[in-house]
């Protein structure tokens, strides 16, 4: 009930986005379907006349069907860039198999005697096809098109990952923000669209079961009209931005930034978090969101725009642990605290770069840094039956590196064993593992603790106002009170959201801070 109210409230406040995304979704599906019918229809007919090609062609279509959709999109980005083109091509490839298979099955399923009689009466091959085979195969053909449609409506949600819009923007934003109402805000209309498309095609089929031309014409008129929704004029500006769903959805990210810096003339598209850096590097977009310590900033020659008005929330990293751990092993506290304040933004970026782009082992990178800091000690021999400290991490390089640092410190300076669990998918999984005692410690970020886990009221957020110390203090107090978990001192770096541009472009335009970006967009200078 609560979710339903939230869902309705979300729709009310995002009515324009809902309409735009639905329109985009319909347009993507319709365009892909139109092309799918245009490609697979004639190809299927050709296959009924060249039967030895049926195996190879249907085999290839089948293989395409098994490629995971996000992987397919990934393959298409280098070829077609971002936006509608890779999305439509991916959907087209997914619609091939059901349409092809049913065209072949439908035409070959027509009673041979009917075809022979028609030929014997003097129908040309084309007339046999148009007036006999296609009308009689129509129910099977339409079943294939309907299957392709439902698949397309589903897969089209992924278009949100390549800046093609659609209802996936809500869905992936909702997943990133752990916001069920937002997920439903996209998923419910997507499901309704699938049903509506399927029902509409079924109606078309029944209304004109005997009129192939009407069905074909109906599709030919309706699909381009629907697809045209995609090419409605879009806002254009001097720069194009590409943001991840979470960045767009969170009140303290893009909306906060827009009002703080007056960035209204920055048109943006939504992209998969994994794709934003590449999109910026390849020039598909000019401004992206990122994490300030990401190794790709250095690897791709990007520049972090200074958040000179402190509009973006702070994300200081700090270990979160179960207090029971320190009660049982008081010697551990000082060991862990050796890292406090030791890692600057640039130091962390550099370490991430070594792992992400030089493909060095996180452990080697971690130990190398510890040695340079004089913190490394060789592991002590473990006494039999020594207690074990269980360390957890999310699945990305920075967390792996931090984990290896803590593991090395504990092994070298205590008599405790270490067990690392690095496969914990995301924030929620790590947090739940810690809360339920399956791990003893993992590195967390103050902003994540605040926004994803605690989710305080806007009034509280206002009072914190993005001040790092205030946020840390609030998170530490609330975790202790609500979950009985302890935040140790921050490590020093702020892996916060930031805005990034290509260094070359930023230098050329003279943009070093978000304020300057705002001025540039407003036409100053």
């Amino acid at each position, binding site marked *: 009930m609560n979710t339903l109210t939230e869902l309705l409230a979300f729709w009310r406040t995002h009515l324009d986005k809902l309409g735009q995304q639905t329109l985009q979704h319909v347009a993507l599906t319709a365009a892909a379907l139109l092309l799918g019918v245009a490609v697979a229809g004639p190809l299927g007919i050709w296959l009924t006349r060249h039967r030895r090609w049926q195996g190879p062609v249907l085999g290839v279509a089948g293989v395409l069907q098994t490629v995971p959709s996000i992987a397919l999109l990934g393959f298409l980005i280098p070829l077609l860039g971002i936006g509608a083109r890779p999305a439509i091509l991916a959907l087209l490839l997914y619609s091939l198999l059901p349409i092809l298979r049913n065209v072949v099955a439908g035409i070959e399923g027509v009673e041979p005697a009917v075809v022979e*009689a028609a030929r*014997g*009466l*003097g129908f040309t091959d084309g007339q046999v096809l148009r*007036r006999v085979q296609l009308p009689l195969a129509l129910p099977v053909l339409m079943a294939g098109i309907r299957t392709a449609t439902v698949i397309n409506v589903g897969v089209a949600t992924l278009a949100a990952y390549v800046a093609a819009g659609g209802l996936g923007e809500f869905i992936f934003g909702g997943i990133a923000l752990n916001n069920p109402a937002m997920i439903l805000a996209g998923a419910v209309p997507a499901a309704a669209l699938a049903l509506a498309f399927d029902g509409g095609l079924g109606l078309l089929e029944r209304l004109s079961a005997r009129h192939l031309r009407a069905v074909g014409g109906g599709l030919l008129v309706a699909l381009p009209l629907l697809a045209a929704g995609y090419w409605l004029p879009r806002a254009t500006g001097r720069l194009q931005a590409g943001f991840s769903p979470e960045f767009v959805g969170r009140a303290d990210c893009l909306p906060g930034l827009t009002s703080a810096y007056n960035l209204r003339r920055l048109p943006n598209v939504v992209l998969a978090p994994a794709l934003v850096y590449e999109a910026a590097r390849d020039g598909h977009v000019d401004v992206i969101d990122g994490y300030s310590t990401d190794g790709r900033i250095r690897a791709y020659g990007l520049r972090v725009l200074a958040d000179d008005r402190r509009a973006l929330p702070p994300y200081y990293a700090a270990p979160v642990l179960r207090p029971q751990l320190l009660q049982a092993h008081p010697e551990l506290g000082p060991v862990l605290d050796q890292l406090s304040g030791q890692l600057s933004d640039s130091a962390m970026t550099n370490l991430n770069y070594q792992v992400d782009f030089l493909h060095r082992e996180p452990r080697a990178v971690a130990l190398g840094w510890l040695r340079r800091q004089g913190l490394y000690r060789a592991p002590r021999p473990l006494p039999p039956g020594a207690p074990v400290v269980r360390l957890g991490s999310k699945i990305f390089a920075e967390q792996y590196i931090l984990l290896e640092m803590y593991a090395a410190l504990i092994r070298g300076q205590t008599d405790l064993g270490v067990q690392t669990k690095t496969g914990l998918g995301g924030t929620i999984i790590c947090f739940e593992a810690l809360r339920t005692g399956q791990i003893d410690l993992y590195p967390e970020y103050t902003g994540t603790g605040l926004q994803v886990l605690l989710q305080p009221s806007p009034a509280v957020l206002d009072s914190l106002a993005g001040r790092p110390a205030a946020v840390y203090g609030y998170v530490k107090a609330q975790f202790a009170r609500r979950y009985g978990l302890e935040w140790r001192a921050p490590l020093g770096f702020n892996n916060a959201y930031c805005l990034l541009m290509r260094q070359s472009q930023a230098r050329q335009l003279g943009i070093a801070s978000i304020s300057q970006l705002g001025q540039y967009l407003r036409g100053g200078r």
Partner: protein
Amino acid sequence: MTTTAIRVTNLRKHFGELAVLQGVSFEVAAGETLVLLGPSGCGKTTLLKTLNRLVEPDGGTIEINGRDVRQQAPEQLRRGLGYVIQQVGLLPHLTVAQNVALVPGLLGQPAAATQARTTALLDRLHLPAARFGGLLPAQLSGGQQQRVGLARALAADPPIVLLDEPFGALDPITRAAVRRDFRELDELRRKTVVLVTHDVTEAFELADRILLLNQGHIEQLGAPRELLRQPASEFVRQFFQAEQLGLEMRITTLAELRPWLSALGSAPASEPAPVATSLVSGSPATTPPPAPTSAPGPDATPLPWAMSVHETLGRLAEAGPAGLPVADTGGRLTQGQVLSAFGHSLSAFAA
């Protein structure tokens, strides 16, 4: 003088290793009904399909109305040849009337004329257009569907009609009824008809001439009575053996029975010369004997001498002896004489 509608010369066709037609040559006269007869797999359907180019032969020529069929696009050729198949093959998504009107439509004939023609044909085939025209094929019985198939083949009034086992899928009673309609259709009397069947009774009932095929070559081509009375090979003789009696009754005319009637001693002298030789020796009786020359009595109807025994018996069965047009001794036969003559001839055949 008859003109040749179809001339087939040295036709050959292989399906892989299998020789289906091995140098087949024959002619069909305009207005003639030729039945392609033979056991399963003898090549008769393949032969029929070469005529409208549904099968392209490996060698030999086919001329229709003096023109090589290869000079025409297959579709154009087929539109001029009616075509009926065993499975009927009505287009299931079109109504009966639409099915019948297909070929005129392909030929671009005016819709109004086509509609009138469709209605007339359906009426003649006992499927009144008002009631049946709007139905879909699936709503018809097998016999009704085949009648529609026949109407469809005739709709554009083609001079030549090809039929491939048109009655083969029907139950015996329906088959007899549809066959009778077929035989009695004026349309077909004027047309050149090539019909494929494996049913010898059907062949004898419908054929002017029969072409008996075996393993891709012609065993014999001739009128039914020639095949029966003068078999060209042991194969031909054996082919008809099982049905001998029934077939004889179909080809034996009343005129041929006259000697037997004379043997009864009551045939008047004024009647035509006996043709007993035709029964005994098997020489063909191609022309029926002339009608009796003496003046008929006031109520008499001349006996139809050309009528077959089979047909005469059929009329007897329908109307009883009274239905048989015979008169008394004034130069005529009595019913009793005719019936006893039948008895004699039947026992002679059976011997």
